[in-house]
């Protein structure tokens, strides 16, 4: 744990050539939309970087984020880099358990106070004193506040940590909130997604190691380099959208010919993420390439913004009942007011005084 040797040494030991390392740096620079010359800067910085201490806290989550990070890219350089941070505490990945695990966290927090990176996945329940998720007898809220106090920066990994995610979905029985709802005095970077793209996590860490600062963020705290554009903007099926070629069901001819999935509920147009460019499973593809529309998982409240299969232009709630009730009410109002009008008319007719000859004569 305390062996914080440089990255280059570790890479060399693990048989990663300098050429592969430079290729990785160039890829990182490209992904983050940095100028080409910055690849050498990244290489220089990374090769000399000491392994930063990272504490990873998992709260109300499904471990999908960790699975995404560790499994899908396992033989690539990205995960090697991830190996090479000093992951001092991670529920799922650490060998230690029980008291020893909690002690490792305490030691890392003490030794690297003010310097360690805090990675969080999962939301934090606040209802009923936070009793709905506890670790070693302590609530998530308590553990987050303690760990955040000494962190240089916090990375909220996945939509649960970034925006509350699934636990936060209506009716939110545990009162789940995002990291940024609790911690206000530390830089927080949200890497949203359910799960997020592994390369994005790696790139953010590489950026932090190179420049000592977090990358440019959008208004939801997500790195602009990856969340600056929508899935729709970069989708390979975009020309089909522009041409008005839409699949009508998941197994019709349009779907087989790779037509746009907009009418099948694709949320690509309103979802910011890099799936369409960075892709998944080592570049094998992304959901739309597999024939399913985007669910919008990297956006806040994605569980609560209507069905995954409702097209964007369609109503997100039933309007028919409202329309029927309104039509009846409108008709009733018309009948009542018309009746009142007629009654008024009849009254006026009854009370009309007849003009007589004597009136005209002015008598």
């Amino acid at each position, binding site marked *: 744990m305390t062996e914080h040797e440089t990255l280059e040494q570790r890479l060399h030991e693990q048989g990663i050539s300098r050429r592969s390392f430079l290729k990785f740096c160039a890829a990182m620079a490209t992904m983050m939309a940095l100028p080409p010359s910055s690849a050498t800067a990244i290489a220089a910085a990374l090769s000399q970087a000491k392994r930063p201490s990272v504490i990873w806290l998992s709260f109300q989550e499904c471990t999908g984020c960790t699975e995404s990070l560790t499994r899908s890219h396992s033989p690539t350089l990205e995960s090697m880099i991830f190996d090479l941070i000093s992951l001092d505490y991670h529920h799922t990945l650490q060998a230690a358990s029980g008291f020893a695990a909690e002690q490792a966290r305490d030691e890392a927090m003490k030794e690297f106070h003010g310097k360690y990176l805090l990675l969080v996945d999962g939301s934090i329940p606040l209802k009923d004193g936070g009793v709905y998720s506890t670790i070693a007898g302590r609530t998530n809220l308590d553990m987050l506040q303690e760990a955040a106090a000494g962190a240089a920066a916090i990375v909220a990994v996945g939509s649960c940590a970034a925006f509350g995610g699934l636990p936060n979905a209506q009716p939110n029985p545990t009162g789940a909130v995002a990291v940024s709802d609790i911690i206000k005095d530390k830089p927080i970077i949200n890497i949203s997604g359910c799960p997020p793209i592994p390369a994005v996590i790696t790139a953010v860490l590489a950026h932090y190691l190179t420049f000592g600062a977090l990358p440019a963020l959008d208004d939801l705290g997500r790195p602009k380099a990856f969340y600056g554009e*929508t899935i*729709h903007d970069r989708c390979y099926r975009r020309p089909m959208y*522009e*041409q*008005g070629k*839409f699949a009508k069901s998941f197994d019709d001819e349009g779907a087989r010919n790779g037509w746009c999935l*907009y*009418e099948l509920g694709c949320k690509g*147009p*309103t979802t910011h993420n890099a799936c369409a460019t960075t892709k998944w499973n080592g570049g094998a593809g992304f959901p739309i390439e597999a024939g399913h529309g985007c669910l*919008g998982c990297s*956006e*806040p*409240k*994605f569980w*609560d*913004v*209507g069905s995954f299969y*409702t*097209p*964007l*232009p*369609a*109503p*997100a*709630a*039933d*309007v*028919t009942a*409202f*329309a029927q*009730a*309104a*039509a009846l*009410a*409108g*008709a009733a*109002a*018309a*009948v009542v*007011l*018309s009746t009142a*009008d007629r009654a008024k008319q009849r009254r006026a007719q009854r009370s009309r005084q007849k003009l007589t000859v004597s009136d005209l004569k002015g008598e």
Partner: protein
Amino acid sequence: MDQELLLWVRGTGLQIATAVFVLGMSYRVLHLLLLGRKPSLAVARGSEWAGGLRTMWQRSFMLPSLSGRGLFTVIAGYVFHVGFLITLFFLSQHIDLFRAVFGFGWPALPRGVIDVAAVLAIGAMVALLVHRFIDPVKRLLSGFEDFLTWTLSFLPLLTGFMLLRNIGFEYLTLLTLHIASVELLMVVAPFTKLAHMFTTFMARWYNGAVNGFKGINA
């Protein structure tokens, strides 16, 4: 703009707008119909229904006798209405909406046709507004309601075209603005001259029926 706002305009906002629109329109239309007419004691010289239906049909076309008096207004008016109706009823996204609400749809027109219709409608509206300011008679006749209804009709067209062609703002922002602008139109329409979207044909039938009863061939 965020996702929740979009959900609101697609959900609660749409429910409110639909309720107000349907309530207002059903009230306006039924109230007009219930006004009724006194039975005419004269001998009919022709059929009310034939005259009414004929006028409903004929007034949908440009009459050469009328166009001479305000050729620009008549042509621009037709261009706007035709363009507006084409974009409203034949854009595939709108048909998705109708299918979701009514349970049936119809084939869409190609995107190029929609683009042309939308641009013509927007251009006609701008031209009509400019003409409203330039022409002394129109300027004298214009009031607050005219500018309100112009704005409320123009915004859905403009935001819709921007959305379709990816102009200016993000999809999320433009979709939210587009739906919100339509809802504003729906809420105000029944209580302004925009109610003509339902009452026009009734009024035409009434004029035609009166003339038909009197045996006037109009």
